[in-house]
């Protein structure tokens, strides 16, 4: 039988009734018996089995006492099993709730974050700040961080509803549990969880974890936008092979920031302001109105200057978004010619396409192709910054 609780209960009932009948058989024949009927025997059985032992009925024959002993021992064992099962059921449920147990069948349109790094809690709060459309209930983390870190996470009121799948994110089993195929976006962090030997991973190990995860996700959740953080920028070719849409070069970015801050005056402050969600202006991408596709960049910048007061256009992001979708769209466009020479040229240009390619301040007559986004400096509205 599958259910151990049911097995224990059936066992107890069988022992109870069979012992009661056997004891009745021996006792009823005895001279000064006090178990004189089947009802007496069954009543005596349950009182003994549950270790209550009123003593109103008791066996007097040797055989009766022998079977009573068997009933007592099996009663204690059986009741112990049932008690243990019931209490562990409630304990486990409480633990799962505490740690954010996730039922992967119900996950939909969620935001998956693989891995754990230092300052994770601040990062999550910033993520919620910079993306007002993402709620803590949308976040699903997959990581093998220590339990006390997860407890800390759930102690923060704003992150109370973040769900966590426990286990190494670079293992396919754990990734499957977060239902990546139904996610809106998956982010892979450069993971800093200590390995089985208790040591922090090296840069190569952390990057290898990221690449393994990206490759697994590429087959598991084809078409879901994938963003990955990599420490050593020379490893990025592997992420491109895994169709990662956006690669975050965290070490290189901070190095460049340091280098440029040394050169120009105040430039570090400029970058910080543009990235920080606490400040009123920040860089973002916006959809380009349909009527500007196929038009020149100068037409779009005139439109922004004339009609949109809270956004300043600074460039365009070509072939933006999910590289699978962008590639499919580019392939569709490339095939629309009866001329085979042109078709070959078009297909080759699709192969050479750079996805998420930013062009700042492009030449005035650069044509805006389908799939491009506008890069803008946006003024955050008062209401938003209060809400954030």
């Amino acid at each position, binding site marked *: 039988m599958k259910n151990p609780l049911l097995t224990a209960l059936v066992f107890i009932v069988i022992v109870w009734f069979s012992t009661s009948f056997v004891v009745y058989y021996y006792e009823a024949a005895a001279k000064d018996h006090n178990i004189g009927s089947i009802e007496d025997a069954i009543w005596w059985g349950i009182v003994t089995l549950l270790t209550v032992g009123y003593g109103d009925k008791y066996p007097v024959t040797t055989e009766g006492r022998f079977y009573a002993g068997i009933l007592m021992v099996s009663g204690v064992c059986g009741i112990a099993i049932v008690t243990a099962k019931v209490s562990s059921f409630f304990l486990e449920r409480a633990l799962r709730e505490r740690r954010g147990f996730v039922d992967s069948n119900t996950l939909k349109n969620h935001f998956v974050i693989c891995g754990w790094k230092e300052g994770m809690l601040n990062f999550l709060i910033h993520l919620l700040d910079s993306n007002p459309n993402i709620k803590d209930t949308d976040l699903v983390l997959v990581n093998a961080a220590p339990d006390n870190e997860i407890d800390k996470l759930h102690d923060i009121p704003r992150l109370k509803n973040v769900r966590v799948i426990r286990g190494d994110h670079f293992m396919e089993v754990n990734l499957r549990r977060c239902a990546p195929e139904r996610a809106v976006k998956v982010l892979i962090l450069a993971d800093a969880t200590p390995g089985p030997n208790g040591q922090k991973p090296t840069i190569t190990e952390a990057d290898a974890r990221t690449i393994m995860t990206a490759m697994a996700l590429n087959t598991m959740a084809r078409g879901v936008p994938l963003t990955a953080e990599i420490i050593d920028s020379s490893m990025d070719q592997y992420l491109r092979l895994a169709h990662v849409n956006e690669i975050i070069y965290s070490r290189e970015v901070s190095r460049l920031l340091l280098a440029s801050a040394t050169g120009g005056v105040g430039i570090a402050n400029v970058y910080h302001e543009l990235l920080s969600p606490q400040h009123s202006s920040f860089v973002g991408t916006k959809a380009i109105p349909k009527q500007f596709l196929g038009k020149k960049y100068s037409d779009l910048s005139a439109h922004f200057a004339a009609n949109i007061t809270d956004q300043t256009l600074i460039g365009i992001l070509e072939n933006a978004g999910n590289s699978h979708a962008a590639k499919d769209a580019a392939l569709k466009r490339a*095939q*629309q010619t*009866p001329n*085979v020479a042109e078709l070959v040229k078009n297909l080759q240009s699709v192969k050479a396409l750079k996805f998420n390619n930013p062009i700042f301040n492009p030449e005035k007559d650069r044509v805006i192709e389908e799939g491009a986004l506008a890069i803008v400096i946006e003024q955050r509205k008062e209401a938003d910054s209060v809400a954030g």
Partner: protein
Amino acid sequence: MSPDKIATAAKLDILSHVGLFSGLKDIPEALAALSNIMKQEEFSAGKALLTEGEVGADFYILISGQVSVYKKTTESDLYKVAILTDKMTPGLGEAGLIEAEPRSATILCDNQCQFLVLNRESFGKFCDQHPVWAIPILKKIAVQLITRLGQSSRDVLLLHKALMNEIRG
């Protein structure tokens, strides 16, 4: 639909401008014989004259209006290849005169269009009656096919090279 019949003289003038009949343009009797076996038809905007992949037996000459030629990609997306107007007196679907082969493109009427229509059966009879006049027409079709075949061979070679380059990396 019963379109206004155009005058025989105008009809002959149109036929003399059709590429397929260019070998007969100095033989008015031949053009007259052709015009006798061609029906005049009218279609409204949106009508599919030919559909890519479907078999047809009619050859159309656009005499008024405008049509667009479409082709399908391997993923079945329809895209526009050309716009043809009555000024060019284009002949559409001449391959259908020879054999019942699937059409190589889709042609839709952009507005109210009038056509002169020749079908395979009547053209066959015409060839039997006037073999001398049929030769220049068939020759024209043969030339068109040779040109197209040459283009196809060059395309195959191009694809072959592109594939080789792709594999070579």
